[in-house]
C-alpha cells in the first residue's frame, strides 16, 4: 500500500530552526468507521458535479475520553473548488451544516474530513490543517483524514490518516503536514445488522434492489444459510480425511469447541418444555385472533346503520376470519 502514494508533503526549503507551532497530539489511534458514514460518502461521490474529480466532506462521530479511539458515525458533504493553484472550501456551508447536525445529534462531534480520491496533495495538507486547527477544528485531538477511492471498475480503497506537523519554514506551515496512516476497521451497530443483511442481499441482483423480507422469509433464509455452512464444513472435513485438503489445527479446534456446545438433555424434560411453550404460543395466538374478531364486530356494530333499508347488503363478514 505504501508505495502507491507519498504521505509526506514538504515545502522547500527545509528550515533549520524549529517552528513554534502548536500542534495536536499525534499519538496513535484506532479508527472505527460505521457503515452509514461510508454509504453516505459513496452517495455524495455519486452526486458530485461533472467537472469535479473528488469531493470532500466533514466526518462526525464520537471520540473516547483519552482520544485513542475514534468512531466515525456520520458525515456530510462540503462544497469545494479546486484549481491548479488554489482550493476553496465553503466554510460558511461547513459551519451551518455542522450546527444543524449537532442539533439533531448532540452527542456527535467533529472528528475529521474525507475526500473521495486516494491522492494526498498540498491541498489535502491545507484542508487537513484547517480541520485540525485550534478553535473550529478538532484541536487538541488530531483530525482524522479518510480517503476513499471511488473510481468505477476498481476496488474501493479506504485509508485513514492523522497528521503531524513537519518542520518547514514558517510561511509554508499552513500547507505542509505529514500524513500518518492509522489502522481502521469497518463496523456496524447491532441494530443495523438486519438492515445491512437485507442490503447485502441485493448485491448479487441484476437490478440492485430487493424487497423487504417477512419474518418467515428471514427464517427460511437463515436456515438455508446454516445448511449451506454445514455443507461447506462437512465437505472440508471429508476432504481432509481423504487427504485432498491440508488439515488445519485451528479449524479442528474450532469444530471441537462448537460440537461440544450441543447440549445433552433429558428426553422427558424436553418434551415437557416443548409442550408447555407451544401451548403458550398457540393460546396467545388464539386469543389475539379472538380479540381481533371482537374488535371488528364492535366496530361494525358501532357504525352499523340500523335503518331497515337493506340489512343484508352490509352484513358483517366476520365469521370468515
Amino acid at each position: 500500500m505504501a508505495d502507491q502514494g507519498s504521505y509526506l508533503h514538504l515545502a522547500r526549503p527545509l528550515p533549520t530552526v524549529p517552528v513554534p507551532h502548536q500542534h495536536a497530539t499525534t499519538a496513535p489511534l484506532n479508527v472505527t468507521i460505521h457503515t452509514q458514514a461510508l454509504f453516505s460518502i459513496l452517495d455524495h461521490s455519486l452526486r458530485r458535479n461533472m467537472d469535479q474529480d473528488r469531493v470532500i466532506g466533514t466526518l462526525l462521530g464520537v471520540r473516547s475520553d483519552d482520544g485513542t479511539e475514534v468512531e466515525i458515525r456520520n458525515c456530510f458533504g462540503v462544497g469545494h473548488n479546486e484549481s491548479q493553484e488554489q482550493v476553496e472550501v465553503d466554510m460558511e456551508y461547513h459551519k451551518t451544516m455542522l450546527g444543524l447536525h449537532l442539533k439533531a445529534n448532540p452527542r456527535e462531534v467533529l472528528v475529521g474530513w474525507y475526500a473521495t480520491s486516494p491522492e494526498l496533495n498540498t491541498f489535502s495538507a491545507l484542508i487537513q490543517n484547517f480541520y485540525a486547527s485550534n478553535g473550529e477544528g478538532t484541536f487538541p485531538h488530531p483530525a482524522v483524514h479518510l480517503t476513499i477511492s471511488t473510481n468505477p471498475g476498481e476496488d474501493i480503497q479506504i485509508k485513514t490518516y492523522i497528521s503531524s506537523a513537519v518542520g518547514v519554514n514558517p510561511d509554508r506551515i499552513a500547507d505542509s503536514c505529514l500524513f500518518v496512516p492509522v489502522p481502521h476497521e469497518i463496523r456496524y451497530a447491532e441494530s443495523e445488522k438486519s438492515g445491512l443483511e437485507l442490503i447485502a442481499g441485493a448485491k448479487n441482483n441484476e437490478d440492485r434492489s430487493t424487497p423487504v423480507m417477512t419474518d418467515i422469509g428471514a427464517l427460511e433464509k437463515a436456515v438455508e444459510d446454516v445448511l449451506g455452512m454445514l455443507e461447506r464444513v462437512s465437505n472440508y472435513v471429508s476432504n481432509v480425511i481423504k487427504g485432498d485438503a491440508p488439515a488445519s489445527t485451528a479449524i479442528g479446534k474450532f469444530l471441537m469447541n462448537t460440537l461440544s456446545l450441543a447440549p445433552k438433555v433429558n428426553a422427558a424434560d424436553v418434551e415437557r418444555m416443548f409442550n408447555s411453550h407451544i401451548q403458550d404460543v398457540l393460546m396467545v395466538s388464539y386469543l389475539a385472533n379472538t380479540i381481533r374478531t371482537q374488535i371488528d364486530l364492535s366496530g361494525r356494530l358501532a357504525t352499523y346503520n340500523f335503518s331497515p333499508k337493506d340489512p343484508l347488503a352490509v352484513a358483517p363478514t366476520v365469521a370468515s376470519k
Partner: protein
Amino acid sequence: MADKLNLGPLKSVRVDALVVLKICKHASSSHPQIVTGQLLGMDVEGELQITNSFPFPSTEAPVSDEKDAASGAAAAPRAKANTYYQTEMVRCLREMNVDANSVGWYQSASLGNFLNTNFVENQFFYQSSLNERTVALVHDTARSTTGALSLRAFRLTPQFMAAHKEGKFTVESLQKHNLTYRDILTELPLTIHNSHLLTNLLHQLDNPAPAPLTSLSFSTPMPLAPNFDALDLSIDPFLEKNCDLLLEAIETHYSEVNNQQYYNRQLAREQAKITAWQAKRKSENQLRASAKQPLLPEDEWQRLFKLPQEPSRLETLLNSKQIEQYSKQIDAFTASVSAKMFAVNQGLPRTEE
C-alpha cells in the same frame, strides 16, 4: 404540480440503502423513544424513490406540560420550531446535489405501536399541505433486532383524508365515507436499492483478504457476517410484551366504548326530556286554542335543551387498527416460532433416562 396529479396513485416505494441505515441508526440511538425525520427523494412514474433523509431534532417541549414532552419528537414533523431547521437543511443538501424534494417522513416504533393520533396527524399534514405524494416510513426497532428488518411505507387512504378534512369522526360521517378501521392506511410495497458503488463495496467487504487461521476468533465478527438472529428461540419476552400492549389497547377500547355508551344514554335522556316538553307544550297550546289565547311557539326546545356532543370515533378507529396490527404480529410470530420449536425439538440429541 398539476401534471403530477395525472400520474395516478403511487404504486411502490424504493428506499436507498443509505436511508435504511440512517433510519436504523437514528431510531436505535434513542430507542425506546420515538424519533422522526424527513425523507427526501423524487417521484418517478408512480414509484417514490427515497434517496436521502435527515433526522429531526427532538424539540424541547415546554417544561410545564408533561404530556407534551413525551410527544415532543412525535409531533416534530408539524412543529413550527422545526420549520427553520428543515428549510435550512434542505437548502444545504440541495447544494450537495441531493434530491431535495420532501417525499415524506419516517418514524420509529416498537412492536408496531405507531398507530396513534400523532401519526395520523403528521401524515395528514404531509399529505394535505406539502405535497400529496408523500409516504410515512415506519421502522420497527424492536422487531428489527429480533429478525428481519421491519420497514414499512404507509399512506392515508382518500376516504380517510376526506373524513379528516371535515374534522369530525361521528358515526354519521363514518357511514357517509364508508370508513372502517381497515380503511385508514394503505401499505405500499417497499424495495431497497443499492447504488453501483455500494454494490462494489459490499462485494469487497464480503470477500476480505483471508486472515491467517491462527488469529481466527469468535469475538470479532467480520462485516457482513451472516445474521442468525432469526433463529433465536426466545419466545416469552416477545409474547409478554405483545400481550401487554394488547391488553392496554383493549383497555383503551373499553373506555372508548364506555364513552360512546355514556353519550348514547345521555342523548336518549335528553331526547326523552324534549319529547316530554313538546307533548306538554302541545297540550298547553290545545288548551290555549280552546281558550282563544295566542299560541306559544313549539320550537323553543332548541334553546332550552342542549344535545350532548358526540365523541369522536377517531380514537376507536385507530385503536381497532392497532389491535389488528398486534394480532397480525402475533400471528406472524406464531408461524415462525412454532416452526423453529418443532425443528429444535426434533434436532436435540437426547439422553434416555
